[in-house]
């Protein structure tokens, strides 16, 4: 494979490949892909390790800790795979590089601060929506769930609505 960092798969071929991965997950496990669920479990695991009495008092956390180890879940294993697969992809394409992606005029510190802030917003939102772009839009969308489709259009609407306010980060 020729290493050209600027060279990506054709988006439609990439989409078919992603769709086949998603289909495989559904055929084998009866559920699709996900990400934020595993991230949340990591948070629950951390809180439970530091303050188990507190975690037991928070319903959304105790629902997980009562079932066993917070990280003993299909989605956590899948996400470990995602990191491995992403790393393999980045190394073999020549796109692995330690950097902060941002527009030419925006500061590194500001970019990291907004990356964290946007992450907090998404972590909160993904609990409210019972899944993120992977677990809800992609997976629920493929099984034609009405809520998943409503969610997906909302994500695009929210992104376009906030794009103007974020333009300085990227340009």
């Amino acid at each position: 494979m020729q290493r050209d960092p600027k060279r990506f798969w054709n988006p439609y071929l990439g989409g078919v490949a992603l769709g086949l991965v998603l289909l495989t997950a559904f055929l084998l496990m009866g559920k699709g892909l996900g990400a934020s669920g595993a991230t949340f479990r990591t948070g629950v695991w951390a809180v439970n390790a530091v303050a188990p009495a507190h975690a037991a008092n928070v319903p959304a956390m105790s629902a997980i800790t009562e079932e066993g180890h917070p990280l003993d879940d299909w989605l956590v294993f899948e996400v470990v795979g995602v990191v491995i697969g992403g790393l393999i992809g980045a190394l073999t394409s020549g796109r692995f590089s330690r950097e902060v992606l941002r527009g030419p005029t925006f500061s590194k510190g500001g970019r990291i601060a907004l990356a964290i802030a946007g992450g907090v917003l998404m972590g909160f939102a993904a609990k409210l929506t019972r899944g993120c772009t992977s677990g809800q839009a992609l997976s629920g969308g493929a099984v034609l769930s009405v809520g998943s489709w409503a969610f997906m259009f909302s994500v695009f609407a929210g992104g376009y609505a906030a794009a103007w306010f974020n333009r300085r980060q990227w340009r």
Partner: protein
Amino acid sequence: MMLFPIESLSDERRALGLAVAVAIGVAFGFVLERSGFGSSKKLVGQFYGTDMTVLKVMFTAIVTAMFGMVILSAVGVFDLASAQFNYPTYLWPMVFGGLLLGVGFVTSGWCPGTSLVGAASGKLDGLATIGGVVVGGVLYAELEPALGSFPNSGKLGTFTLPQLLHLPPIVVALLVLAMAVGAFKLATRIQTALTTQAPTEAPVSTGA
């Protein structure tokens, strides 16, 4: 008895199921990286009309998996209803939360899944976003009791587009395909218009 899903993978052969999880994750992460989703700059291009990769990859993936499941369900091999049962609709939190998530997407430059791929590619803003998503989830858990009944509002249970439209799944699948093709054409037109008007803006990186 349906062939798929293979229920033993979630039950007595759970260890094998977890190995399958890692393997599926590796494929998921690799495909996302190859599609360009290891870059926040490329991802947010979607929201500035300069790079429509997110829309194209996502809708093509949905259409592909959807047709696979609808057809395999029609021939009696796959239990689609049991898969749909895992995706119940709670309309209001999903609509409101979707808006929040979209704002978080363009602010952070990532969605929760792609931030993992970004971090794996060495992108420190991806790593920062993962940290934020962890904190945001914990924050939600802490605040959830104060949200009252809102997280369960608009509860429609397992409610699908074929039920909403009173059409057979295969017809809905064809409508989704038609919508996707329309969206692709529109997206390509917008991207062409925006990138030729302002050639100095965000680089358009199409592979082939």
